[in-house]
């Protein structure tokens, strides 16, 4: 599929999904919303981490920053404005941090980015306690479910479209080159540092915007719930289980994962995370290429 076809397919899927609020039940809509959120997070994560093989756990930091923009600004800012500012705030944070830590690789980078979420969470908790004398914020008068759904859909579609565009651009080629051999990419004249910071910033924008858009779903926002490391882990898991190098993989697996999590949560409310953990281990051990590799294997078997 070339770039134009992929963009057209994205647009068509978006048009179909946009009809959901008028067709589906409330429960199905909520489920679709969580699928969309994770699809957007996983696609934006894979945008940077897929080709470069970096392992970023910073998603929950970006998501939380976006959510806190809504928490502080909702009411003064319109909903869409908060989403936009949330994305920009997360992107600015990513650019700042990325410039400092993107020369690290492997486990070091994973640890630092995991820490970022905790760092921002502790900083905000401290700030709120000391200066605002509060623990959390109440969102009064949230937008309707359909508005939230359509906004999240728009952000996710934008993330997918951006991912498609990046793959076909000089930035995309540079990222693949960095992932294969960073020194060689430098020798060939790629400004690897600028490219990495740019892609990291871009991927953070979508995570922040999604955080800002989803924040109104919780009526009460506190650091512990929006900087939940689980959101970051889940994103990485979805993208890697789907196949981080592919575009379709993360989208497919976000649907599978959201439905599966919901099913397990309803059927086994206590053992659900135990099952999820076991499943994850089995998937990593026996399907390391992700769901996308299963699809291509099937296709090869047919041919």
């Amino acid at each position: 599929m070339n770039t134009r076809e992929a963009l057209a397919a994205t647009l068509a899927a978006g048009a179909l999904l946009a009809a959901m609020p008028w067709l589906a039940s409330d429960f199905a809509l909520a489920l679709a919303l969580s699928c969309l959120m994770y699809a957007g997070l996983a696609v934006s994560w894979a945008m940077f981490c897929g080709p470069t093989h970096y392992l970023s756990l910073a998603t929950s930091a970006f998501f939380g920053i976006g959510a806190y923009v809504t928490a502080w600004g909702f009411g003064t800012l319109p909903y869409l404005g908060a989403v936009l500012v949330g994305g920009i705030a997360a992107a600015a944070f990513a650019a700042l941090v990325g410039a400092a830590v993107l020369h690290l690789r492997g486990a070091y980078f994973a640890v630092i980015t995991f820490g970022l979420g905790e760092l921002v969470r502790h900083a905000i908790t401290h700030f709120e306690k000391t200066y605002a004398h509060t623990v959390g914020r109440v969102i009064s008068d949230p937008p309707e479910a359909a508005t939230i759904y359509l906004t999240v859909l728009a952000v996710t579609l934008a993330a997918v479209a951006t991912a498609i565009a990046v793959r076909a651009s000089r930035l995309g080629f540079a990222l693949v080159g960095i992932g294969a051999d960073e020194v060689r990419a430098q020798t060939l004249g790629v400004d690897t540092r600028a490219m990495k910071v740019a892609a990291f910033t871009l991927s953070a924008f979508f995570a922040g915007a999604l955080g800002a858009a989803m924040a109104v779903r919780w009526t009460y926002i506190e650091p512990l719930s929006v900087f939940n490391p689980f959101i970051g882990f889940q994103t990485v898991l979805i993208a890697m289980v789907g196949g981080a190098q592919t575009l379709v993989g993360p989208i497919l697996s976000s649907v599978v994962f959201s439905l599966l999590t919901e099913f397990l949560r309803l059927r086994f409310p206590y053992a659900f995370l135990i099952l999820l953990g076991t499943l994850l281990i089995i998937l990593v051990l026996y399907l390391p290429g992700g769901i996308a590799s299963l699809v291509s294997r099937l296709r090869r078997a047919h041919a």
Partner: protein
Amino acid sequence: MGFWLELAASGLITGGIYAVVAIGLNLQYGLMRIMNISHGEFLMLGAYLTWLAYTVLGINPLASLLPVAVALFLLGLIVYALCFRRIARTAPSVEVIEARSLLVGFGLMFLVQNAAYLAWGADLRGYSFLAEPVEIAGARFMSNRLVVFAFAVGLSLVMLAVLRWTLIGKAVRAMMQSPAGAQLVGIDTTVLHPVVFGAGLALAGVAGGLLSMVYEISPSMGEPYTVTALIVITLGGLGSALGSLLGGFILGLVEAFGMHFTSPSLKMLLSYAVLIGVLLARPRGLFSR
């Protein structure tokens, strides 16, 4: 004077625990590139085992340290055989091993932590052991803390000695320097890897047992220790047990003094500030040449 001594001592005591946790994790990472993010969960298991042995069977926590270490060592062999052996065999490159073992670590974290919630609930548990004050040089210490400190430092030093002077320690260091070279001179990876992984978990378990004598325990207690251990490893350098010991003390002291001068809620911020500073200035660790 006494006050500063107490502050420094409290930093060194937490630092000693950090060192024990970090040495285990550092061995696993340095030797096998296993980024075991679930390390702290095994610390939590060690703490619960010690607590159970004390409250149910009435066994002295110090006496149960050795059985806890053995139990965690065996558990480590099982976990390695079930999860990490396959990754090491099938992964095409070191980076892939790191990424996959990190994911498996997350899986283990969910698994163990939530199993503990199911088994023991979310309440804080604790018992009081040797909780009488001792006075040394004008400073007052709880005697259980001194015991914990002595055991933590002793254990770390024993680990250093094992690595330096025993045959297995030499084999471990050889594997870290050059995996291919070590295999050429007849070091058996299939034995060494599970043993070192098990030893890492045993150290975590003992650290948990020590912690349970001083602090209250809960199923989510492990995660902060994992993160702290990763910071300590970064401070001390990958693969360096001595670096982990010194890094643990440094971080413990920074936290103790930092919290005194600022506020206790800034503890994590301080740790991260140290981490980011070190990574920017000396990415290979404070003691690298």
